[in-house]
């Protein structure tokens, strides 16, 4: 069964600091997604990573994918308060897996302190 694990689960950081969130998954996939969820709101897509070595950047966030290590990272540079949210990674199935599920990680709740 495909499992997706994130760490840390909770992250409190000062404005201006850098940090990385990790996403590990348990089966072969070269498609990895990052979503953001604000409290009481739905999920918003941040990044789509579709191959080994893929790197995407948007503002202070940068995501990367290492399919051999089954690991994705979300790096935060010079954090600002507006980045406070819960971040989820998700993995979708391969064609041959026999399933259609997008499996989500446990989430990382980020709080940026002023």
């Amino acid at each position: 069964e495909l499992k997706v694990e994130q760490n840390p689960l909770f992250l409190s950081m000062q404005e201006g600091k850098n940090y990385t969130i990790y996403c590990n998954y348990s089966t072969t996939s070269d498609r990895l997604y990052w979503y953001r969820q604000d409290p009481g709101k739905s999920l918003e897509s941040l990044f789509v990573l579709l191959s080994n070595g893929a790197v995407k950047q948007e503002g202070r966030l940068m995501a990367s994918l290492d399919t051999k290590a089954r690991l994705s990272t979300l790096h935060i540079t010079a954090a600002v308060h507006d980045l406070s949210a819960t971040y989820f990674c998700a993995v979708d199935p391969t064609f041959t897996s026999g399933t259609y599920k997008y499996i989500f990680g446990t989430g990382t709740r980020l709080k940026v302190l002023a």
Partner: protein
Amino acid sequence: GAGVSQSPRYKVAKRGQDVALRCDPISGHVSLFWYQQALGQGPEFLTYFQNEAQLDKSGLPSDRFFAERPEGSVSTLKIQRTQQEDSAVYLCASSPRRSGVGEKLFFGSGTQLSVL
């Protein structure tokens, strides 16, 4: 509308009641997913439709849960004889093509179900 629409936004049910949750995906989207999100947790897969065909219902927790998408657009998730453990946010998501081709999901705002 431009996004995925879900209704009602909030639903309070007495234990044992039946409920129906509606999802209106983005027009033309082939794939439709239902997820259940408990407080402080990630979304858990319930079921997947490709057009009107329900191709995966392995995440439905019991036979009290039933989903349909009869014309390949609007979908309804029905929960019969609700129990307290059914309390959660139910999220609907759609994407333009079939699952497995590397597309992000577009999520609705969810229906928060509280079973008393």
